[in-house]
């Protein structure tokens, strides 16, 4: 326990809290900027198991704020889940860390949330957050929303049955494109660390059983405009009309995506799935695409540049086409260069 002595000395955690942490199982969805900081804080704090799910790969433009990753990760084009797990194991080898190179969606979420004590939000879009909200309520697992863009961010913890849920607070999914994203408006490192630190503090409270200490307010911070504001949710009237926590209609869980593509909002990219996932052999594809432009691949991921677009292809056949937001174009490119 020497390793955790300073945390054990902190009276609200103590030896008992540390033992609870050591048994805690946490699902982190998204390991970009917030996810990097969250994963590091929790792994250093000595949780029992971290399941880390991410669908993306490390890019040079991530390094300014995504604190787990290095230039070598970007050069190798490693999936974030793989790179993160490597670094986290060096930080604390006693924590069980499970890597999932996967998109968290209505099909995959059920298996990911089983036997978890907490869901941490490191995602970059509202749709996945509404899905996590449904999963949290259905399987009675707390989750902690955090998000930031520019110099502004917010954090809020949701405890099923004890607090309002995301849909009580934000009844409608903001229309795609209506709000700025890190890819359209930028983001500065400090707000990432601040929001993730707020989330991680709530996580430690929940995992050590200090539920009464959990902040029931939305905390908003703007590190450039020098504004900190909170919104008290305790008077929010939970009258049972909320479709998610009141009526237990889990529309986002039920909406298993039927489509084969999804525009990654604000990222100028489209994600595309195969109708039946099966392992892909990168070698022949790389040889074919090398005639058209630069190609690199490793055991997890192939990246190729064709027609001013970048194709990233994962082992299970999932692709991310960067340089377009048009689903039809992405499907055409995928069919043309990867095949069906």
């Amino acid at each position, binding site marked *: 326990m020497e390793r955790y002595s300073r945390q054990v000395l902190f009276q609200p955690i103590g030896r008992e809290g540390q033992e609870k942490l050591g048994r805690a199982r946490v699902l982190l969805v998204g390991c970009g900027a917030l996810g990097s900081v969250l994963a590091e804080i929790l792994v250093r704090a000595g949780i029992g198991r971290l399941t880390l799910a991410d669908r993306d790969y490390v890019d040079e433009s991530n390094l300014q704020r995504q604190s787990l990753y290095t230039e070598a990760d970007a050069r190798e084009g490693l999936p974030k889940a793989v790179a993160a797990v490597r670094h986290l194991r060096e930080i604390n080898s006693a924590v069980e860390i499970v890597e999932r190179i996967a998109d968290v969606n209505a099909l995959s979420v059920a298996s990911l949330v089983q036997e978890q004590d907490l869901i941490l939000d490191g995602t970059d879009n509202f749709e996945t957050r509404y899905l996590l909200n449904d999963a949290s309520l259905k399987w009675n697992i707390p989750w902690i929303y955090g998000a930031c863009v*520019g110099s502004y961010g917010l954090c809020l913890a949701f405890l099923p049955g004890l607090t309002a849920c995301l849909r009580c607070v934000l009844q409608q999914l903001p229309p795609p494109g209506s709000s700025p994203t890190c890819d359209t408006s930028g983001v500065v490192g400090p707000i990432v660390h601040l929001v993730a630190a707020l989330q991680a503090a709530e996580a430690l409270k929940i995992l050590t059983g200090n539920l009464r200490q959990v902040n029931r307010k939305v905390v908003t911070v703007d590190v450039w405009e020098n504004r900190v504001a909170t919104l008290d949710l305790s008077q929010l009237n939970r009258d049972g009309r909320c479709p998610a926590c009141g009526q237990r209609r889990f529309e986002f869980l039920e909406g298993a995506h039927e489509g084969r593509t999804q525009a990654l909002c604000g990222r100028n990219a489209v994600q595309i799935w195969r109708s039946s996932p099966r392992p892909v052999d990168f070698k022949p594809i790389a040889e074919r695409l090398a005639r058209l432009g630069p190609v690199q691949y490793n055991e997890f991921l192939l990246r190729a540049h064709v027609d001013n677009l970048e194709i990233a292809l994962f082992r299970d056949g999932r692709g991310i086409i960067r340089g377009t937001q048009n689903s039809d174009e992405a499907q055409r490119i995928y069919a043309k260069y990867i095949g069906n």
Partner: protein
Amino acid sequence: MSIKVLFFASLADLTGMRETEVDSRAHTSVASIYTKFARDFPRLEEHRASLLYAVNSEFVQPDSPVHDGDEVAFFPPVSGG
């Protein structure tokens, strides 16, 4: 007879204002204050259905009443991470 109005993040960018005041006699609800500004800054309409509304730092629904001396705040949720 005034109500203080605060705009945060992208809403402050859209309106060019972080903080302003409205006449409390002209407004009965949080939504009516928002509507007043949306007339001057039509892009505010896009955000109306997915905002966090507060009166005196307390989360409220848009139809909540407002009174002289209140502080009304509009927060956009964001999605980056």
